[in-house]
């Protein structure tokens, strides 16, 4: 499935390039941007950021965060997600969230966040986010987007897996004050939504889905664990009689996705999935440490990664070997390490690039080191 994603900005003109070079001579060793950021962090040419403008509670533990993105925001397609960097307790944390509106007339974007138990970022955003706060953004990404031409679709969503689907549906069926608007471009779509949640009140966007169901625009099949029992995917055929004619989009935790995948493969049905919460990093003692050149070593939980890598013949940056000089710091793309001085765990999900001191960090699970 392909979708037209808005093009990025054209390259700079030679004159502008020359002016920039001159400005750099005036600000060195910093860049002109370092000064401009003090006054206009959302300007064109700046690193992509956004400013939180509204925080709207959705349920007791979910909220929609409305963000004004920087001038270089390239737009998005309903169903895509955005990676967002938020400072929690002073530490920058990156997470991916679905964009819950189609492109809006006011140029703002929104994400809907459900506070997951123990979730640093989700809890911070739902309970502590304040308008005016700057956040860091990446351009929207994701292949989990609505097909351009109307067709028969089935959405299987669980928990906060509803968010990319809501983005698609809101774009397709905008809601005005006097009800849902029927747009010509929505005519060809025939949509069924099977939404699963632990119980009814915790189901975010429920009223939105119900409105669409009542207006006859989608067919909603809501399944609550406490009422209907945990969904068994082999029942999908009963819940959705014309399952075989539909392309399925599934979004939710890994367990559900694996089950739907097995179910659909068996029957040869088309399926697109998006796992929403990043895979849990499995932590333990020691693990396989992979490096950029393809080398991979088995490191135990008591040996610094620096030592283990050097023993395996790798050339590593190093310094004091006691954790004070920061000469050995390397980015960990994903994985988990334990600080041998304190026992503290540091984990990185893919894309996080957490910098670690290799001389005092031992593997606490599989690690991917950018070196």
């Amino acid at each position, binding site marked *: 499935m392909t979708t037209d994603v808005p093009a990025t900005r054209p390259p700079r003109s030679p004159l502008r390039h020359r002016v920039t070079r001159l400005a750099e001579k*005036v600000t060195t*060793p910093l860049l002109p941007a370092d000064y401009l950021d003090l006054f206009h962090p959302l300007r064109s040419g700046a690193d992509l950021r956004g400013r939180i403008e509204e925080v709207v509670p959705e349920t007791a533990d979910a909220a929609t965060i409305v963000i004004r993105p920087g001038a270089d925001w390239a737009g998005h397609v309903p169903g895509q997600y955005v990676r967002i960097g938020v*400072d929690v307790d*002073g530490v920058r944390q990156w997470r991916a969230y679905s964009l819950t509106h189609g492109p809006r007339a006011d140029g703002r974007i929104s994400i809907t966040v459900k506070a997951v138990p123990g979730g640093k970022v989700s809890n911070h955003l739902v309970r502590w986010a304040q308008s005016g706060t700057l956040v860091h953004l990446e351009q929207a990404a994701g292949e989990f987007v609505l097909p351009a031409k109307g067709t028969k679709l089935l959405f299987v969503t669980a928990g906060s897996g509803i968010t990319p689907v809501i983005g698609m549906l809101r774009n397709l069926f905008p809601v005005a004050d006097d009800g849902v608007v029927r747009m010509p471009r929505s005519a060809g779509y025939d949509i069924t939504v099977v939404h699963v949640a632990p119980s009814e009140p915790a189901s975010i966007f429920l009223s939105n889905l119900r409105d669409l169901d009542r207006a006859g625009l989608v067919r909603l099949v809501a399944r609550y664990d406490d009422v209907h029992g945990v969904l068994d995917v082999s029942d999908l055929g009963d819940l959705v009689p014309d399952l075989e004619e539909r392309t399925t989009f599934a979004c939710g935790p890994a367990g559900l996705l694996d089950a739907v995948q097995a179910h659909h493969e068996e029957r040869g049905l088309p399926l697109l999935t998006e796992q929403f919460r990043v895979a849990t990093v499995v932590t333990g003692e020691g693990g396989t440490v992979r490096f950029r050149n393809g080398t991979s070593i088995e490191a135990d939980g008591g040996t610094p990664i620096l030592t283990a890598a050097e023993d395996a013949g790798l050339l590593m940056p190093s310094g*004091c070997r006691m954790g*004070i*000089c*920061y000469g050995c710091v390397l980015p960990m793309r994903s994985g988990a390490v334990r600080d041998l001085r304190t026992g503290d765990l540091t984990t990185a999900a893919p894309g996080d690039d957490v*910098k670690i001191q290799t001389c005092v960090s031992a593997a606490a699970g599989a690690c991917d080191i950018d070196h």
Partner: protein
Amino acid sequence: MTVMQKKDHDPTAHLTSEDVERLGEELDAIRASVVATRGERDAAYIRRVISVQRKLELGSRAVLLVSIFPPAWILGTAGLALAKIIENMEVGHNVMHGQWDWMRDPKIHSTTWEWDNASPSEQWKHSHNELHHTYTNVVGKDNDLGYGIMRVDEDQRWVPLYLAQPLWNFLNACFFEYGIAAYDLELGKNLATRKRRSSPEFKARARQVLRKIRGQVTKDYLAHPILSGPSFLHTLTANATANLVRNLWTHSVIMCGHFPEGVETFERRSINGETRGEWYLRQMLGSANITGTRAMHFMTGNLSFQVEHHLFPDLPSNRYQEIAPQVRALFEKYGLTYVTGSLPHQVGSAWKKVFRLSLPNDFGSTAHAKVLELVRPARREDEAQAA
């Protein structure tokens, strides 16, 4: 001072190795308590400092565009000197130590920071973080002891060149940023032999330094003066003055860290197989603090808490002040001397040592004898003639 190991009285003689390890654990606990509470307040602090510093620099440079007017020259120069000091001390030095790496902000990180100084951050981090902070005050290992151009310890061998070291020290103070660059480049050692001079590694590093210096000089002595138009010369002298003031100030503060009387030095052999506790002990005895106002501490980049900084070089600088009483209590508990004094006192103490050690150790006692020796034969000749 003489290396601790050769002294008649060893200030650590009363401590057993168990005491030293317990001291290490108590210091680890102080470190852990800061790490556990590191958070939003600290992040807000460093961001505010960086923001204020940049605005001060911008404002001062804007005022200097009309530096042809004397009040503008004075105001702009003062502001720029302040901004440069803050940039080097509270921001640059500390960021490059990795004190703010925990924030995971790529713009305030030891691996990406570049400072307003002649020495490229990469080279400075190697010679400072790795060599000086690991081998603090170990004679023959820590080049910060006299920076390779001075003798600041009795156990450094005297050569006649040191006679002029008060002059070297003054010149180094005036051009300190270039002194640091030459020092980080290990210029003395690397220029000594043809082999070292022509090694590709040295050449690459030398090119890196020259590139950095070219950028710095172009900015302060060409780009900003040109922007000032008719104030060209005035802005040039203003920038030179701001750099001079920054150099003199940072040099003075840094002299106070390890040179004042009462600070111990260590024999090379003494660090073989050193434990964590022993390393901590060496940092405690090898550093000296400066007492003063909050503003003074800030302008030194909190290096006035040199003891705390050397114990925990990667803790956020705003926390040194807070843990200082706990650290000092440990000095008392373990019967150690916490060396500290006012800025003028510590600067004076360091300078006194620079003067004293410009002469050989035994100069005071042997000079007298030597003078007598020179005089006596003459007298004998006189007597012979008279006889």
